[in-house]
């Protein structure tokens, strides 16, 4: 039987056709970068019609987003997924915003629907340059408490205290924690695979580098409670004692 199958494989009927089709999809038009307000307001909407949003692909429209403003895509995508939606693409963003979206593996959709006024690429590089030139650095000296989120956009994050269970720290670059990490830490938030997490005492709920993560259950006991670094090695997340 197997031989038959193989011999017929050469002249198999075409397995696919390439076609174009249009779909009507819900579009989430972001009006500002206040993720907390967004979380709250979307929560209300979803509660009203949970079935409508379940497993629904959605497009994020940045046409109404303040120009030059940074969109916290990791948070946004996590938020939408949390409500059962499947965010898959972005439209109407600036170059920087699109790059950030691509880092989260979101598709950049055509600008066909854009307002003409928005597509003024000449003005865009200006706000972009200083951000690239000066990597930001965020320093936190007080404990990061349960329920708090800290995101160091565009740079490294140092926490000279503990990160409690139920708290989340994220950075586009490296994360250094000089206390105990009991919560979640996400380095290389926009896809930087060279980012690392360093911490004095690992008791984390979750560690992640560029989207590759490990939860508490999968962290070996001998790596808990000791100083470690977390990094990506050939796309595999590794945790090593320092």
């Amino acid at each position, binding site marked *: 039987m197997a031989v038959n199958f193989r011999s017929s494989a050469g002249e198999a009927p075409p397995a696919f056709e390439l076609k174009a089709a249009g779909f009507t999809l819900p579009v989430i038009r972001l009006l500002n970068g206040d993720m907390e307000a967004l979380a709250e307001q979307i929560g209300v909407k979803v509660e009203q019609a949970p079935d409508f949003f379940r497993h629904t692909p959605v497009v994020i429209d940045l046409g109404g987003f303040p120009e030059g403003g940074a969109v916290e895509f990791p948070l946004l995508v996590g938020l939408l997924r949390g409500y059962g939606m499947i965010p898959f693409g972005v439209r109407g963003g600036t170059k920087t915003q699109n790059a950030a979206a691509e880092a989260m593996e979101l598709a950049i959709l055509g600008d066909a629907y854009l307002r003409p006024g928005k597509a003024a690429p000449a003005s865009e590089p200006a706000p972009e340059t200083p951000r690239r030139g000066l990597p930001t650095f965020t320093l936190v000296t007080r404990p990061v*408490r*349960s*329920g*708090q989120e800290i995101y160091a956009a565009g740079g490294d994050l140092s926490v000279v205290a503990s990160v409690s269970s*139920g*708290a989340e720290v994220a950075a586009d670059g490296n994360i250094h924690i000089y*206390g105990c990490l009991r919560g979640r830490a996400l380095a290389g938030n926009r896809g930087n695979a060279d980012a690392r997490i360093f911490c004095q005492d690992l008791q984390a709920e979750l560690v992640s580098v560029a989207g590759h993560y490990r939860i508490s259950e999968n962290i070996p006991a001998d790596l808990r409670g000791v100083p470690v670094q977390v990094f990506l090695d050939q796309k595999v997340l590794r945790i090593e004692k320092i």
Partner: protein
Amino acid sequence: MSRIIVITSGKGGVGKTTTSAALSMGLAQRGHRTVVIDFDVGLRNLDLIMGCERRVVYDFVNVINHEANLNQALIRDKRCDNLYVLPASQTRDKEALTKEGVGRVLDELSQSYDFIVCDSPAGIEHGATMAMYYADDAVVVTNPEVSSVRDSDRMLGILSSKSRRAETNAEPIREHLLLTRYDVPRVESGEMLSVKDVQDILSLDLLGIIPESKAVLTASNAGVPVILDRESDAGQAYADAVSRYLGEEVPHRFMTAEKKGFFNRLFRG
């Protein structure tokens, strides 16, 4: 200069009201003019613990709504002239507490009181955020068990981000940990978290350890703040906490089993 102290926890049933009653009585007994406010609108309890439930005429919400002035609503404690109670309303809900209204009342009280103790409701919703918004000091009441510790941690996060001091970038709220219902035998057998465990997680200045004690329930039922029961371990522990709050150095007690317990175990063994 008056100080506003919020007694908070996140979790319910850990001893916020007991602590509010005890600390405010302790401060008043040391000669400080003190007022204790019940922020638990709709679930009023402080008046019972303070033993003034029969004397409530007007309440906090009346004052906020200009239906009564402060002097009409404040109840003077019969045991201590320096202590006043501002009861919560039992018939309203927490939305009656407005930021402006609470601010105005606290402002007025700070003219004539040294300490304003705010007894926060459980949870992290409106009532609790109103109780802590204007605070200078926070006493985070925590039981030695994981859910209480996590809720306290959450509350500490809110204190450092949503208070007036945080919003105006003033010096942060001074946070103190008060460990209540501390049951030494259960800690030693590993059923409960130890002082060290809790401090490791919360990394806070320890204001006191209040041992699990029958005296607390007895005092609550009698409407007497437990700090007045000088014979009881809990009463003494609260008195120590008041001293520490006022800057005295008092060694922590009730962290290990009493000698009697030790000998008991020796002989049993």
